[in-house]
């Protein structure tokens, strides 16, 4: 546990002073972004000051939103299924490699865990070739894209979803494994003696007990998929199917300094879902990263 004895009042005060100053360090770039996004001219006043009454505008937010709206929608279509699928597959993989205990599972597990640390540059060319040449979903599933509400570029999004699921499995497996290791062996043994099959044990015992870990994994993985730029560029590229990070990286680049208001507003719009998730579930996020 932590140090119990309390320092003297003066030192305690100093400690709080430092910690509060550090809040400034971590929040100032974000606060400055917010203030700048609300100013008519980002150069008019010091960046951290709020806009004056005559210099206040929501126009930058409107502009940024109109440029990012399509990307936001694509990101939702991408991140929600990709997150749920990789969490589910991570949970079953961890169950099959942890709770179900068999000889020789360690090498398989090492392959799963090493997958967390792969630099994606080592797979990018095969990944883009695979989706572009060998399995071009936008062409192969043409009949599907003819259905109402669907467009050919959804094929690229589907490819991106599958890629994110595949590359997300290692981390979700590790998260669930650290959780399942602490489950009591007696509980599983008792169920087995009652004649329960592995499927039944997973469905009736493990899955219901996994809810807290699903919260951690879903939040962590949602943030990862939502925030990704590299796969989005390589698998989908700029255009109608692009997730929000792609247009955001281009936003205001041609507008020089005046464009910073739009850039900042855009950064907030693109970050909003992750910020909301983080504020609501900060505890789970901290658990996810600490594992």
């Amino acid at each position, binding site marked *: *546990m*932590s140090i119990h004895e*309390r320092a003297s009042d003066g030192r305690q005060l100093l400690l709080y002073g430092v*910690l509060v100053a*550090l*809040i400034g*360090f*971590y*929040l100032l*770039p*974000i606060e*400055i*972004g917010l203030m700048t996004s609300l100013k008519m001219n980002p*150069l008019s006043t010091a*960046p951290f000051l709020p806009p004056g009454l005559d210099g206040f505008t929501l126009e930058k937010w409107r502009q940024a939103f109109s440029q990012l709206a399509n990307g936001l929608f694509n990101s939702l279509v991408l991140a929600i299924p990709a997150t749920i699928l990789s969490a589910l*597959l991570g949970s079953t*993989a961890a*169950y099959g490699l942890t709770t*179900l*205990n*068999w000889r020789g599972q*360690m090498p*398989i597990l090492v*392959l*799963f*865990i*090493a*997958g967390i*640390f792969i*630099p994606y*540059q*080592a797979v*990018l*060319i*095969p*990944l883009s*070739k*695979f989706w572009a040449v060998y399995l071009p979903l936008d062409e192969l599933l043409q009949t599907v894209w003819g259905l109402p509400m669907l467009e050919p570029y959804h094929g690229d999004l589907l490819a991106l979803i599958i890629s994110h699921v*595949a*590359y997300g*499995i*290692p981390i979700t497996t590790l998260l669930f494994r650290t959780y399942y290791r602490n489950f009591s062996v007696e509980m599983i043994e008792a169920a087995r003696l009652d004649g329960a099959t*592995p499927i039944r044990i997973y469905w009736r015992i493990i899955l219901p007990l996994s809810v807290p870990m699903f919260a951690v994994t879903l939040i962590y993985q949602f943030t990862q998929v939502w*925030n*990704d*730029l*590299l796969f989005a*560029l390589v698998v989908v590229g700029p255009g109608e199917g692009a997730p929000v990070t792609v247009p*955001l*990286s281009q936003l205001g680049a041609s507008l020089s*300094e005046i464009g910073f208001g739009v*850039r*900042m507003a855009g*950064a907030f719009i693109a970050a909003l879902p992750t*910020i909301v998730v*983080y504020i609501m579930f900060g*505890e789970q996020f*901290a658990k996810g*990263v*600490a594992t």
Partner: protein
Amino acid sequence: MTDGGSAVSTDEPTLLSNVSDEFLGSLLFWLPPFLLMGFFVYGAIGWNFVISLTETSGFGGVDYSQLDIEQYTRAFGDPTFINATTNTFVLLITFTAVCLAIGLLLAIMMDRKLRFDNGFRTIYLLPMSLSFVVTAQFWLWMYNYDNGLINIIISSLGFSKYQWISNPDLVLSAVIFALVWQFSGYAMVVYLAGLRAIPQEQYEAARTDGANTLRLYQRVIIPQLKGATISASVVLMVFALKAFDFLYSLTGSYIPPKGSDILATMMVRQAFRINNQAYAAAIGIMLFALALAIITPYLTYQHRRGEL
């Protein structure tokens, strides 16, 4: 165990059949995710390695008839590659070391039964939840020449302003500072968990031995944070290897600011802009080798400690 011999020999057959039952029953759960992940991770790395042995460039197919290591020898004679490798190592080492130092200091301050410690932690960790694309926008503005906070601060201290992003001598340090801002909270969380796992008695024992606070940390606490340091550094290094998203977003193109090219950005540029696919694949393999050199000792260490 001397009396267990007969028991083991009679148990053996059932034990073995249990093992294979367990194995067969487990397949349904781990094999599908393993195949999907294995195809995209290890299959792709293998394919990438083969491409790196060819001469592929442009948009045509890959000619696998002649395989050699020319792309690798080419890299070592390429000043762009040497420069990107140097920058990668500078980024990797400086970023990791500074994050760990700040994270440790923060964790030690936080580990004092503070009020609102969850609130502090939430705020320190907030930047990590943001996309590199988002934080790159924030820091472009922070480093702006005319009205960026960094230049405002240094000119109020009496120094002259700098072009942080467009000056090739400064940009890498500026990027490292921004990344430290984003990830030092992570190092803090890992260290705090490590500190809280140290049994209370050890503090008291050191106290009764008359150790002062500095010695207490030096002798008792820091050595026990070895595990936390190792896991945090591995994860931070992996983040640093993924800094591509941040550098791409600074310019919105495959060409990062001059002076900040790392292997990750160079590889993507060679692959998708210059279309030197075989060369890019070779750079990817070398990045993979670098990652392997970092994670193999780490996974071995974790395995020995039974924490895998």
